[in-house]
């Protein structure tokens, strides 16, 4: 059976849940994922209106090839359960769960989701969960959270809330949350799922966004949340392999196929040893770059 192609999650565009203009156009900007937000982007006295609006948008708007996720309110708030009751029956690609702190909380969330799915005769394995880590306790428990359920297929970090929880300022170099970012990446990698970086709040600082995104890529994030369509191209470009990387990966891929046919496990290209991990990395580079392997 052919290996399932992993979906690119370079850019995840937050769209405020009570803004019809932005919700209806969310799919046209080129983001890999859209994130319809019922949580922080919606005023407390508009939660009800946003929930109904997002529900109708999910039913009627074509988001093209974007992965569609909905950030619901936490189940400990007066809005979380109502959000899940409206959104789960529509089975977006994922529910983004804010301020995840423990597997007990995650278990309760999954119990509620599955109860709603049972009521609507829906499967338990289609809609994924993206767990947001936004508190120090969440960071401490991130390994357990990432491993808890097959439904959790991405871990994301909420930098603004995390710095607030830590009682520190969110600086442009993200020094205060660097440890947390790396913890989250390791937890995600250990479980074979994606780690998604926090937003870059200064929409006008394009160079700063590019630098931060390249750093995020370097330390292992698969993608980054964005808050403005202007940020999408910069983030997508930063997460795309360079021409040089693609050329090198193509060479490795061709060499690997040839070596395999000859029964070799390890071989060399330009004097450098190529083994299974190097091949896996090259294959992922080609996958991200959307290169058809049959053409190599």
């Amino acid at each position, binding site marked *: 059976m052919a290996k399932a192609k992993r979906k690119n999650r370079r850019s995840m565009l937050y769209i405020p849940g009570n803004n019809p203009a932005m919700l*209806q156009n969310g799919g046209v900007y080129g983001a890999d994922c859209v994130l319809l937000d019922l949580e922080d982007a919606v005023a407390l006295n508009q939660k009800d209106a946003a929930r109904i609006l997002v529900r*109708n948008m999910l039913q009627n708007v074509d988001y093209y090839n974007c992965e569609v996720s909905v950030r619901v309110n936490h189940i400990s708030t007066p809005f979380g359960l109502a959000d899940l009751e409206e959104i789960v029956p529509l089975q977006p690609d994922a529910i983004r769960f804010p301020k995840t702190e423990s597997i007990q909380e995650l278990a309760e969330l999954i119990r509620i989701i599955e109860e709603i799915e049972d009521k609507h005769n829906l499967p338990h394995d289609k809609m994924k969960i993206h767990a947001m880590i936004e508190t120090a306790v969440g960071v401490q428990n991130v390994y357990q959270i990432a491993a808890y359920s097959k439904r959790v297929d991405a871990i994301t970090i909420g930098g603004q809330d995390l710095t607030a929880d830590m009682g520190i300022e969110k600086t442009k170099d993200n020094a205060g949350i660097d440890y947390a970012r790396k913890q989250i990446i390791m937890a995600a990698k250990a479980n074979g799922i994606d780690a998604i970086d926090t937003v870059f709040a200064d929409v006008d600082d394009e160079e700063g966004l590019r630098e931060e995104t390249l750093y995020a890529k370097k330390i292992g994030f698969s993608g980054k949340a964005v808050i403005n369509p202007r940020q999408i191209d910069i983030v997508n470009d930063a997460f795309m392999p360079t021409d040089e990387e693609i050329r090198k990966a193509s060479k490795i891929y061709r060499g690997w196929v040839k070596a395999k046919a000859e029964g070799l496990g390890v071989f060399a290209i330009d004097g450098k040893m190529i083994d299974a991990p190097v091949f896996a990395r090259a294959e992922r580079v080609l996958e991200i770059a959307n290169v058809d392997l049959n053409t190599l």
Partner: protein
Amino acid sequence: MKLIQSAQVGTFESSDIMILIDPADMGTGRDIELDSNVILQYGDDILQSIHKILDKYEIADVKMVATDKGALNHTIEARVEAALLRAMNIQKGTLL
């Protein structure tokens, strides 16, 4: 379903519609005042969307002012539904 209080949902932003509703005396029917900059092209469609939701909640008597800024049907329906739920005191909103 019975409306028990006034309610407001929506904004005057582009692609949105502002819905203001008040309970009306029984037998007075649906009094809908619609203002839209595309009323000539889409006035009937907008009213149809409004009536669809009023029918769904079995609202026979209501006073409504709808100020449309080019909202799509599913936005109109969402705003009317949220306004009705607030007016029925099922959901809490801005005027509470």
